[in-house]
């Protein structure tokens, strides 16, 4: 059996010069002073020779670290393998965010051109006594890459000294499937944050900003960055009292019988390139329509709530949704699932029922009514795919039963789903979509923490995961960082980039999804999926798949409105306990297992 390591660590025997060019695994984030951040394990882990391996159709990454003995200018260059169709390399400078606890963590990744000329300390990052600058190196291995070893050299020039780091990348024959083992979704709300995150652009355009081509280019660039990182992007376009942003819905006119769509202009500029896939032209993954999108439907749109329960409400709803179906069909927008999704909660005083996370079962009757209206509005044989989505927590178990055949897309609370192990298979068997949700881990947690979501989803048999908010980096992510628990990308405007830039966490998540997708593709006669899940769980955190589930608590038999949040926390603790502290090497072990299987496959061919 071939036993291949992802990266071979060769400790430095001696330092020839004061300047060093080193590397760390992607899960070991360097700090600006020549160490590994404490959350990722402290000081060990620097390498002076890098040996990587990866599958085709995927990425391989690591941190490249420039260390200099004295302040001053330096130049960094990557000299790629001369093979004409080998892996493509991209270099990013890592921004060191100063958190409110006065610690530095690298996260935002700034694309840089080579050779990269700068100085230590990095002028814009403004870190006193900085001695070390980290770079993220991304290798993209196209699916048609010849399987063999490729050699890249990193070269550091500082003062009179030159330092080098050899990078060997073994490309395996295995190919990461195009379709992910589960969809990683990145959620957001509205567009007002774009004006805040791109102040120069919004100032320049003034009142025109929210109708401008630049706005839609920006929106598309967010879809693109998540797509390029093996994920998707959702943007909710309405508020809890039913206000709909004009860029999220066609313009309406009239009321009652005369209510109709008057203008598609903004909607089509926003969504057309996303529904026909042209917004993704030129990406590594190729142009494809977005798989899911929120419809702009609320209890107040397209029918006015003033008519709720009256014939006028039904007429307004059915007529306008029918027009939408017709428009989508005419445009050929049949590759996207259009989600009827209610996000409102009664605690925000817009409507008298919870659309999101129903706690009071009597609210389910509103879902039944909207299901009826949708059936009336959309022809049964329409090629346009409408789905009725419910984000579910308290009343999940009952909703799965009571709303069967009405709601067919479920985004489930991670906690409550944890005691319903039969639910994902049951829902899939009846054709429903089942995802679960949580949020990004902060940068202060071990870098590998983010890998738990795709693994948990795969082990539990769900088809997707939603990070509930992924574009809100706080007022000053650069020098007063809140930890990034609501963002996985950053505005690139301060670096002259009119779009988002990725993060270390997003890259680690992407790589994990690719590797998990590859692992899942090995399932078959000789390797059962359950065996692969067992091995992955064991490698990850020394657990078994059953330990990723909880016992159904006794209080689950009581009415949901009698449950307490505290009891809920207690009930879900056993499974969550295994995921509270992910050790820095957790995913490295899974990756090693995946690569071993891939390499064994190579050996068999």
């Amino acid at each position, binding site marked *: 059996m071939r036993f291949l390591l992802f990266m071979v660590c060769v400790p430095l025997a001696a330092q020839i010069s004061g300047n060093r060019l080193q590397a760390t695994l992607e899960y070991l984030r360097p700090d600006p002073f020549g160490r590994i951040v404490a959350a990722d394990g402290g000081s060990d882990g620097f390498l002076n020779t890098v040996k990587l391996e990866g599958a085709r159709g995927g990425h391989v990454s690591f941190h490249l670290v420039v260390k200099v003995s004295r302040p001053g200018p330096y130049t960094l260059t990557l000299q790629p393998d001369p093979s004409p169709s080998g892996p493509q390399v991209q270099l990013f400078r890592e921004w060191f965010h100063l958190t409110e606890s006065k610690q530095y963590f690298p996260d935002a990744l700034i694309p840089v051109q080579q050779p990269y000329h700068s100085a230590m300390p990095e002028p814009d990052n403004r870190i006193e006594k900085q001695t070390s600058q980290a770079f993220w190196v991304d290798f993209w291995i196209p699916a048609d890459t010849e399987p063999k070893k490729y050699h890249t050299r990193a070269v550091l020039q500082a003062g009179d000294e030159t330092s080098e780091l050899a990078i060997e990348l073994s490309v395996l024959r295995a190919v990461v499937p195009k379709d992910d083992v589960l969809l990683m979704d990145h959620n957001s709300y509205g567009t007002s944050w774009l004006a805040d995150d791109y102040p120069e652009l919004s100032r320049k355009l003034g009142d025109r900003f929210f109708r401008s081509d630049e706005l839609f280019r920006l929106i598309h660039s967010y879809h693109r960055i998540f797509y390029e990182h093996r994920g998707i992007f959702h943007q909710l376009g309405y508020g809890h009292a039913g206000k709909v942003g004009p860029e999220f819905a066609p313009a309406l006119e009239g009321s009652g019988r005369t209510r109709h769509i008057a203008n598609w202009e903004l909607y089509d500029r926003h969504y057309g390139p996303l529904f026909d896939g042209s917004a993704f032209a030129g990406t590594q993954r190729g142009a494809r329509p977005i798989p899911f999108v929120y419809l702009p439907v609320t209890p107040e749109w397209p029918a006015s709530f003033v008519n709720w329960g009256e014939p006028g409400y039904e007429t307004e709803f059915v007529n306008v949704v029918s027009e939408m179906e017709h428009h989508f069909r005419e445009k050929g927008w049949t590759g996207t699932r259009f989600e009827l999704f209610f996000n409102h909660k009664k605690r925000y005083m817009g409507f008298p029922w919870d659309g999101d996370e129903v706690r*009071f079962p009597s609210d389910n009757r509103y879902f039944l009514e909207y299901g009826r209206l949708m059936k009336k509005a959309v022809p049964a044989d329409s090629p346009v795919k409408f789905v009725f989505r419910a984000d579910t927590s308290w009343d999940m178990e009952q909703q799965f039963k009571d709303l069967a055949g009405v709601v067919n897309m479920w985004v489930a609370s991670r906690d409550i789903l944890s005691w319903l192990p039969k639910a994902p298979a049951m829902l899939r068997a009846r054709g429903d979509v089942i995802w679960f949700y949580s949020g990004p881990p902060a940068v202060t947690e071990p870098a590998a923490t983010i890998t738990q979501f795709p693994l948990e989803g795969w082990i539990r048999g769900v088809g997707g995961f939603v990070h509930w908010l992924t574009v809100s980096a706080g007022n000053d992510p650069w020098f007063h960082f809140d930890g990034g628990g609501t963002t996985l990308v950053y505005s690139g405007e301060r670096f002259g980039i009119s779009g988002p830039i990725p993060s270390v966490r997003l890259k680690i998540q992407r790589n994990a999804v690719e590797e998990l997708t590859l692992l899942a593709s090995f399932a078959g006669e000789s390797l059962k999926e359950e065996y692969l899940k067992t091995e992955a769980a064991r490698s990850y955190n020394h657990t078994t798949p059953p330990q990723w589930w909880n016992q159904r608590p006794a209080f689950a038999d009581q009415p949901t409105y009698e449950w*307490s949040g505290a009891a809920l926390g207690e009930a879900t603790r056993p499974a969550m306990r295994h995921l509270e502290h992910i050790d820095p090497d957790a995913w490295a072990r899974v990756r090693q297992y995946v690569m071993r299987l891939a390499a064994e496959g190579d050996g068999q061919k």
Partner: protein
Amino acid sequence: MKGLLLALALVAPLAAAERDMARELDDVARIATVMVDGDACRRIVTPRALEYMFKNDPKDPWVAGDNYEVNDEAFIAVKKTLLRLSHLASFPCDVNLWMPIAGHPDKVRVVIRNRNELSQFWPWGALYQDMIPAMKQVLETGQRLKVTEKPGWVSVLAPVYDSLGDIVGLVEAVTQEPVDPQGNVK
């Protein structure tokens, strides 16, 4: 001098527009006092939700919101009235319902918000908040009041009565100039 005249020429129509809007909102609020059913308003938020509203549990930080519930029949009836009232204005406007909280004279809560998601007073997400002095005045005196504290915002507050003639709450007829189409879309 020329600059001053120019500034006055620019500001004068704006001020006039604000006056017109305030006048229309005052009409809306005056009619609301007649049309909004204070008895129905009293029935909207359940006693259970009010009981939980001030609960504080470090192990359950969302206990108040998670237990917020309303009687939907009363909610819908009053909301429809508020929506119709907002149609009286010739510009985008909301008519929100606010109510005091028994046993908490220093607090007030919004009970119904509407389609433009406008309010000069509601900090997004609050179940209740400190009593607004202008609201306290309306609740105590029954007089309508115009509030323009936030630049660009005009609210007119007016009392809501029940069948006993008691003031049980108030409406906020509110607009913002210019309207922010992206605001509160979240």
